[in-house]
């Protein structure tokens, strides 16, 4: 039985058991997920799962409840429908119920790569092997994963949709004397992940991170590589461009206001890579410009927050998201219009060689009189959601830049900074041209960004023991 058949069967069960007035939406997803994990340069965990899941939301007699399950037998589906209907009837009224999505066309999604969808463990292991070999004897750790989802939506207005998505991702570090270098990518095809290229990049950065020095805390100009920028995008998405937080006045976002530097354009582009063409409510997914040349244009909505805001859903509903709210999860920071002038990664010939791994970053570094090159941010947590003040640490390599040259490695630093303020008008001193897609912890979400030069970042202390 197909996923679409199963979803339709669940909706029909709700109609039969809950009466013709019962509203229902069902999502059925089969997933083949696999992840090959390595540490100390050997594969130490290698896992896969073939699962099916059903999500159901019902609205009956003005009351709403949701349920889910992994049992797709006739008895299992009946049990799911019965307990969800029972739960809904026992709930208090839901005056904010926005209704179900009406029938609508589903946008065309990019084709999926069948080779990635059906990748074997040997293929992941071979990429890991290439990463390890390219690290030239340094200790390595990380993962290579593939994901394939086949998902169908149906609701009692007669709307239905179907789509598939695949993703491949690789993320690894190389270590030298406790200093780490990292390389990570998210792609639509496993074939696009080159373990050797990533391993060599991580190793070069690890070599360049040797003998780090302590720097005093303070405000520094910074060049963030794409991995670090990804953290900015994630926090801006979850806390700022979240329609629920916006409605609750917990977001910094003010549509129409020039809140960011003119260099900043942010687009959530769920179909910019292989992705499902509809959200958890069946609404078609499409590109949404959140910030255009520094001016905030929109926040993400599902049907409920859209009604509250008097706008349409933007296709950002997630299962069980009523509490967390709708969030962009495929955000791209658009790069500079023209390519960088310099294609040379400038560094001293000593310990810092290899810190700069691409031309975009090199061009940004070249303009810095004194500042820091930051590879990655780690364990970032929000101190205040409205101002989006965040604390966290650097990780996987930090270097001091003097007069446009990377001069030496620096020990990790803790920062406390307001992300919107750091990206505010006049604060962005440069952008690379090429956005590099970074994986999220779960498949289906990614962050694409070029390297980014910011006028100031507040480091509040060293991380050394």
């Amino acid at each position, binding site marked *: 039985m197909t996923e679409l058949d199963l979803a339709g069967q669940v909706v029909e069960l709700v109609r039969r058991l809950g009466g013709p007035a019962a509203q229902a939406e069902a999502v059925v997803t089969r997933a083949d997920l696999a992840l090959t994990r390595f540490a100390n340069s*050997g594969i130490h965990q*290698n896992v896969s799962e073939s699962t099916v899941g059903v999500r159901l939301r019902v609205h009956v007699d003005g009351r709403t409840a949701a349920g889910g399950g992994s049992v797709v037998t006739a008895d299992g589906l009946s049990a799911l429908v019965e307990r969800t209907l029972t739960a809904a009837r026992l709930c208090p009224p839901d005056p904010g119920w926005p209704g179900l999505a009406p029938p609508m066309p589903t946008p065309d999604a990019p084709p999926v790569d069948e080779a990635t969808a059906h990748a074997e463990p040997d293929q*992941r292991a071979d990429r890991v092997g290439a990463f390890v070999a390219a690290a030239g004897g340094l200790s390595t750790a990380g993962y290579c994963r593939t994901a394939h989802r086949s998902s169908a939506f149906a609701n009692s207005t007669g709307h239905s949709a179907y789509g598939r998505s695949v993703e491949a991702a690789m993320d690894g570090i190389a270590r030298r004397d406790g200093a780490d270098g990292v390389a990570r990518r998210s792609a639509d095809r496993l074939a696009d992940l080159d373990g050797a290229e990533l391993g060599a990049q991580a190793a070069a950065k690890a070599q360049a991170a040797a003998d780090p020095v302590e720097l005093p805390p303070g405000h520094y100009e910074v060049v963030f590589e794409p991995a670090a920028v990804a953290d900015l995008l994630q926090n801006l998405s979850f806390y700022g461009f979240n329609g629920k937080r916006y409605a609750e006045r917990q977001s910094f976002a003010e549509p129409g206001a020039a809140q960011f530097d003119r260099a900043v354009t942010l687009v959530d582009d769920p179909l910019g890579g292989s992705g499902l063409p509809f959200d958890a409510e069946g609404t078609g997914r499409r590109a949404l410009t959140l910030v255009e040349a520094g001016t905030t244009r929109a926040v993400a909505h599902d049907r409920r927050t859209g009604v509250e805001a008097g706008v349409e859903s933007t296709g950002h509903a997630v299962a069980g998201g009523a*509490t967390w709210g709708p969030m962009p999860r495929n955000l791209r920071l658009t790069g500079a219009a023209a390519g960088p002038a310099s294609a040379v990664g400038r560094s001293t010939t000593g310990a810092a060689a290899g810190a700069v791994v691409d031309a975009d970053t090199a061009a940004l570094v070249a303009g810095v009189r004194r500042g820091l090159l930051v590879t990655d941010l780690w364990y970032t947590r929000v*101190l205040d959601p409205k101002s989006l003040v965040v604390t966290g640490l650097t990780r996987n390599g930090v270097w001091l830049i003097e007069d446009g040259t990377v001069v030496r490695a620096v020990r990790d630093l803790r920062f406390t900074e307001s992300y919107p303020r750091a990206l505010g008008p006049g604060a962005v001193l440069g952008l690379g041209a090429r956005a590099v897609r970074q994986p999220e912890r779960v498949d289906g979400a990614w962050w694409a960004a070029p390297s980014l030069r910011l006028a100031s970042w507040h480091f509040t202390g060293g991380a050394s*023991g």
Partner: protein
Amino acid sequence: MTEFDAASAAVQAALDAGARYADARVMHRRYESMTARNGDVEELTQDESIGLGVRALVGASWGFHAVPDLSDAAARDAGRRATRTAMASARVPGPSVDLVPVEAVTASWASGCQIDPLGVPLSAKGDLLVDATRTMAEHGADLAEGLYQIWDTAKWFVSSEGHRIDQRIRECGGGISATSIGDGETQRRSWPSYRGQYGTTGWELVESLDLAAHAAQIAEESRALLTAPLCPAGETDLILGGEQLALQIHESVGHAIELDRILGWEAAFAGTSWLDLAQLGSLRYGSELMNITIDPTIPGALGSFGFDDEGSPAVKRDAVRDGRWVGVLAGRDSAAMASLDYGGSVRADGWARLPMVRMTNVGLEPGPHTLEEIIAATDDGVLMDLNRSWSIDDKRLNFQFGCEIGWEIKKGRRGRMLRNPTYTGIGPLFWRSMDMLSGETVSWGTPNCGKGQPGQIGHTGHPAAPARFRNVRVGVSA
């Protein structure tokens, strides 16, 4: 076909395909959560999931596969696929894998439960949250939120060494929070804890929290915080409430003593540990007041079980004794690699996830004082309580925590309320500065511990009581 039959079929298929060891877990979990906001129920979700995960060891390499189907054919196929995946692992081999011995047992275990949380009428559970959130809204909270969560998990474990163990673990808990939104910032107060309090227990835990009785006070405090003075910046004596100290233990001790991190298995993601196994037994972790235990036998604490997900029985151990580091959280393979003789701290958050080293109940033994005695003995300091933010480096050394609320302590008395209190430090230096410890211990439950790839959410417990730390940097801001 019973759950044990399915697990046995998977194990046998893995052995037939070439595995030298295999184990399988069938898990059936029912989950229910409800959230309420400003006097209305916001979301009610009920999930039910059942499936099987099988782990196979071939040579020095592991493989794991999971399916939601308990038929004989599906179970056997899962066993074969786990073995095939293990064989692929051998293309990039690591060191040899051994397992510390554990007695193969046939056993059953269940957590304590007076009131079945899934048996309590939904309307009653909803009324509890609605009443509390309505009261908070009436007392000035812009966002009045409440939630409860319930997990009812049955597990059946079989290994190729002869284990046959079934367990039923019921967990639940909940809490409320009030958020007030000012000009450019928000303030939040929670009861009894950020995200609530949880345990391996029945609905009696949620009833004991008496959420409605605390609603008005936390709403008023959240508003008062908007105009309270900022926590001053500088070094001072710091008194931490028990809930915040529980998180301090979790982050700066619990994760640091995970043997998989110490061995580098989490290096790329969760990070490693500052601890060096060569110093086990001799390293001074903290002051002599610091006695940390690993104890999955505590009745009702969130990290309790009868057997871990490798079949090792729950056993209480020391992690830090009189300030010295003496023990780790380990699994059978990591312990063997480290030449230790115990595992017992391996769990998975569902049938589709590989068991990995996890905190059980990692807690601080009580001290001789009360919180009031500690305050009375403090001439100049800050009292902070209830976590608001947490961040720690990948070696578990440098941390910065934010709390919901602080109070100035002057000449032995609690003074003004302080806004945005934060403190920062280095783990072992911080723990060595602990000089007063209360005996008012509570086993705080943490239901949201993230670790591993693919991601897993762990449930851990942390007995903790208020304590004082000398000369701590506080008041870090942007």
